[in-house]
């Protein structure tokens, strides 16, 4: 036992060192996650001493809320669906187009890449506030431009019909850089010989894209679809920063599930119900991810 070989001893130490982050991860991330599952079964008020067990009552409330016409919970789920259904494909499409163009240019490459990546490394709150001002009805840049071209001014964030799209545009723009970088890396990995062969065969640009670029880019697409979907499902900070009092208005038109979790948990101290919302969101993310992995990871020949 005490006469280990050098190699074995090295390995043992490697395990010891690796164990530290694992313990940390378990205590800081995994345990609270399971705790949230348990919490959702209680009428959990952090200020109180007793946390009465209520079984599935929080989930029943959630279900009842979903069936009320103007309920904020229902709005949160519908909006979150809106963010992902509109946002994710649009963001990836634009990112792919930009990546394809960036892949073509030969001068000022770094400058252009920087221009697209910069928003991604900028603080979301800062970006959101800048856009809040850009969207401002009177002296915001967008309305000043509209006015200059004698087009009707728009309320943007102040109108329930435009607010979600206005926030979504900012989020798409801000996350674009990340998707572009992943696509660029994917494009660099496609061997040039395929394109040369296609050219020799007289393939059109569309055929080349459809039959070579797109299928060989599949791993990048899968990665981005999964990651960006999760990020849209977790929308929080931009809505908090861009709506009046951070309430996801007007008329609940921009609120999200995570914003509701935050409000229920920390404003109303209704942690059991907030935990039930997170559990439902967790299940949705899990299902969406499994579904996407099934559909998108097809073998390419």
């Amino acid at each position, binding site marked *: 036992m005490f006469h280990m070989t050098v190699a074995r001893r090295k390995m043992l130490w490697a395990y010891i060192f690796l164990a530290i982050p694992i313990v940390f991860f378990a205590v800081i991330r995994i345990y609270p996650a399971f705790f949230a599952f348990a919490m959702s079964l209680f009428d959990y*008020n*952090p*200020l*109180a*001493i*007793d946390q009465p067990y209520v079984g599935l009552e929080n989930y029943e409330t959630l279900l009842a809320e979903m069936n009320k016409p*103007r309920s904020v919970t229902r709005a949160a789920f519908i909006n979150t669906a809106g963010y992902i259904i509109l946002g994710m494909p649009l963001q990836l499409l634009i990112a792919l187009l930009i990546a394809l163009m960036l892949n073509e240019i030969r001068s000022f490459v770094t400058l252009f890449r920087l221009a697209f990546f910069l928003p991604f490394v900028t603080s979301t709150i800062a970006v959101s506030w800048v856009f809040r001002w850009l969207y*401002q*009805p*009177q002296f915001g840049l967008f309305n000043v431009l509209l006015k200059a071209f004698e087009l009707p*001014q728009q*309320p943007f964030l*102040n*109108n*329930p019909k435009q607010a979600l799209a206005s926030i979504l545009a900012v989020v798409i723009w801000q996350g674009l850089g990340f998707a572009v970088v992943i696509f660029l890396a994917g494009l660099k990995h496609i061997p040039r010989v395929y394109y040369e062969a296609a050219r020799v065969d007289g393939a059109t640009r569309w055929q080349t894209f459809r039959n070579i670029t797109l299928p060989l880019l599949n791993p990048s697409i899968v990665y981005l679809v999964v990651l960006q979907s999760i990020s849209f499902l977790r929308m929080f900070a931009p809505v908090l920063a861009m709506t*009046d*009092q951070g*309430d996801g*208005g*007007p*008329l*609940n038109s921009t609120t999200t599930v995570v914003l509701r979790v935050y*409000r229920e948990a*920390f*404003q*109303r*101290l209704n942690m059991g119900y907030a935990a039930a919302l997170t559990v439902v969101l967790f299940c949705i993310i899990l299902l969406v991810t499994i579904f996407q992995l099934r559909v998108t990871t097809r073998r390419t020949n």
Partner: protein
Amino acid sequence: MNKVRLMLMLVGLLALSGAALADGHVVEIEYWQYNFGARVDAMNALIEQFHEANPDVRVVHNSDIPYANFRDELAASAPAGVGPDVVTLFYGWIPAFVDAGYLVPLPAEDFPEEWIESHFSPMVANSKFEGSYWAVPTAVRSLALFWNKDIFEAAGLDPEAPPTTLDEFVEIAIATTTYDGDAEIMNITQQGYAPQLSGQAHHWFREVLLRQHGGVPYNEDNTEVLWGSDEGCAAFAWLASFETEHKTGSNDLFNGATESFITGTAALHIDGSFRLGTIARNNPELNYGVAELPVGPNGERSTFGSYWTHGITRRAAGDEARMDAATRFLQFITTAEAGALWVDMVGELPAQLESAGDPDLVADSRLGPFAAGLEYAHATFFADESQQRQHLIDAFDLIRLGGMDACDALAEGAALEQALLDDFWAGRG
């Protein structure tokens, strides 16, 4: 040998420090409030005085919590077994903190009911919940009318004559609004009055406009929502008309109605005494006046009163010495003198009528109108303040953005609020 000496020295040190603790009998208690410069300074001054008078108590003042996180931090501290012995809370939060068992009733012998009811502004009776007083304030706030004298002058109005009735308020709001083009909200370059429901306008509606239109917001025991009534509908329509009909302003413009008044682009504004400090810090040049709120059609006066109040926590109640120290501290910071210090340093009005009626205060051109309002102020009983505010914000948005009829929008909000109250009172005596 060295080790033994070291051990002996350590033992000696421990014994010494133990003896010092036993001899001093100093009880340490914690007091928590949110971070707001003037409030922190005022409380530090009070704590210093308290230490002088009570050398056996040491108060640790925790004021490092930003306003927006204050509730979260209290919520996070409780399960961790730490937190304040005396805590400052918004009066509207009391039911939630009482329900959680976080607060203990004020000891009746130290804070007799008759004494609270006879010495404090009548709105303090709102801290009574389930038959007990759970908190008592140093200072209170009320709403008053702010008006921009420069804008009045530019519009050809007497800069020293603010509107005194609701009708005058409408006339002046219309007269002071300017547009770049047609009289449309989007073309406004200077606002007469912009209703901000997420600010103070929901209070103005519930406790002032509604009463002036002949209604009351809730029934006697706060179990029934009455603001959805015909009177409520008339008052709410009056408020909405500034945006939908008179087009004198909107909270969507100029980064919100409050900011608009502070930066000098709005003529009329309804706000609390705490706004005096914000204006002094952000735009000291603003040439404005403060007056009591306009009276109703039959001369009814009303204003909304609110306050941050101090309670004793179950943490203090768990230990006799701490409870005693906390009680003495709470008594000390809620005297009429403490209120007088508070108005000087923070600009909030003393909660005890004795200092609120101080002739100098009443004569003050800016604080006076707020102090005058304390006599007739109403504080709303809130079961869930943020939700109750949201109901009125949404009703207002349904009118101005959804084109809904004022009565229908209000009725919808009232139904939601009734459900909230039913839920709140369910299972109580």
